[in-house]
């Protein structure tokens, strides 16, 4: 009952927002603030006849690749730093430095050093994300239960099985946290990377719309993009998290 009431409230606030927007657009009556109906019809046109799906697909692919690279490298480094004090001591200040370099600096430097290439784009995004993954996973690696590792040792469980069935599950909550915040960050950085040095993708399209002051187009793409993020959260992240934590009472 509470649940249905909550979803009512959710829907109601969204509806109210659209209504206010529509009224404001009608009052202003200028292309600077297109009405939601206009944005939706533009979105429909882009979807059916335009190139929205193509650009969205390109952006999604970049997000996926740089996300996977950042998670893999960040996890590996985080585990090593959490496990070995010497490595941690040696790399910690570099990590703090990397955490505080503005995303824009990494992006510009990558483009200058590697050219306006796909590799440069993906590298720039991954580099921005790796340090935060390291910090989160390192925390998890430090909290690993030695008693459970001893069980695997005494019973001569193979290294691989120990890693997958005893060690890694202890990191799942940390990996999920890193993945969540990682996606949120990477979505945003990928658009900047595309705006600055790619000739396709959502970021590139937004840049084009910006030059023509095509606010309807910008909002239509934003809608599409937000919808994709919500879908990824609903069909990928949440089921994954449920699966990984189903043993919790």
């Amino acid at each position, binding site marked *: 009952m509470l649940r249905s009431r909550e979803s009512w409230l959710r829907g109601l606030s969204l509806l109210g927002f659209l209504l206010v927007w529509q009224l404001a657009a009608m009052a202003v009556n200028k292309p600077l603030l297109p009405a939601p109906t206009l944005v939706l019809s533009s979105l429909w046109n882009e979807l059916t006849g335009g190139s929205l799906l193509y650009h969205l697909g390109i952006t999604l692919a970049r997000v996926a690749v740089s996300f996977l690279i950042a998670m893999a490298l960040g996890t590996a480094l985080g585990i090593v730093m959490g496990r070995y004090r010497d490595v941690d001591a040696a790399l910690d200040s570099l990590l703090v430095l990397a955490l505080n370099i503005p995303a824009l600096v990494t992006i510009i430097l990558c483009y200058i050093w590697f050219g306006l290439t796909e590799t440069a784009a993906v590298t720039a995004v991954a580099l921005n994300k790796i340090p935060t993954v390291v910090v989160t996973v390192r925390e998890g690696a430090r909290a690993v239960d030695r*008693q459970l590792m*001893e*069980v695997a040792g*005494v*019973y*001569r469980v193979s290294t691989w099985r120990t890693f997958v*069935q005893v060690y890694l599950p202890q990191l799942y909550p940390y990996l999920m946290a890193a993945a969540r915040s990682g996606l949120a960050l990477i979505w945003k950085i990928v658009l900047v990377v595309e705006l600055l040095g790619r000739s396709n993708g959502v970021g590139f399209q937004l840049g084009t719309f910006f030059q023509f002051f095509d606010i309807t187009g910008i909002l239509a793409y934003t809608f599409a993009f937000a919808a994709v993020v919500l879908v990824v959260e609903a069909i990928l992240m949440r089921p994954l998290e449920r699966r990984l934590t189903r043993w*919790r009472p």
Partner: protein
Amino acid sequence: MKTSLEVNIRRKIFPGTDVVAVEELMLTALPGEFVAIVGPSGAGKSTLLNIVAGLDREMDGDVQVDGQPLHADGLISARIGFVFQEPRLMPWLTVMDNLMLVLVKSTDSVERVRHLLREVGLADIEQSFPNQLSGGMQRRVSLVRAFVMRPELLLMDEPFLSLDAPTAARLRRLLLTLWGELHPTVLFVTHHLREALALADRVLFLSSSPGRVVLEVSVQLPRPRELEEARIGELHDRLLAQYPDLLSGLVEEEMRSASGITPSDNHLVSN
């Protein structure tokens, strides 16, 4: 399957200190023998088991099975089952997966796991997660885990500590049943003299720090034995009268601890 064990620890120092945990601790176990080790807190009982299990390698001494070093080149040359004070099950694995974890995959594995689960009365929980089980059930699973890989050597570190009396009694009975099938050589650490006498072929007494064997008693009462039986009580009292200095501290600890394995609990023991 049966394995003799020879432990010879010349000196073991707690890491980072100069406190001697164990000194000149020597013990042997015959193939298939059930040896209980009792001693007050701080006698290095857990340290001893960790050394035999290869979890603790920073010491001066050696451990041999059948005349061969047990730990060579970082490998352990015998199958060791270890029942810890805590159940230590992986919370994210089902009971079945927890047990399969310690097995090298082979065809009879699943059948053997099911057989043992049935034997300890847990046939219907193989797909449950440890958090869904009671404490006593978790202990039973951890007991099964120690037997499922057909151990040659079984190490037990106060496995029935802080359990209520009926549960502890049931687990002791299960332990003896499982032990009777394979007859691994057992080192059973406890600070309950009665428990040691009820279970073991031979009981070794350790002094407190540094721990070393100060007394050895062989228990020649036929099995099955129950903790609360009169003959165990008699043996217990006789030892106490014979070695008051050695054992009084031990018994005080036993009285203080909440495990409640006292004869008055006799009527509670069922199932």
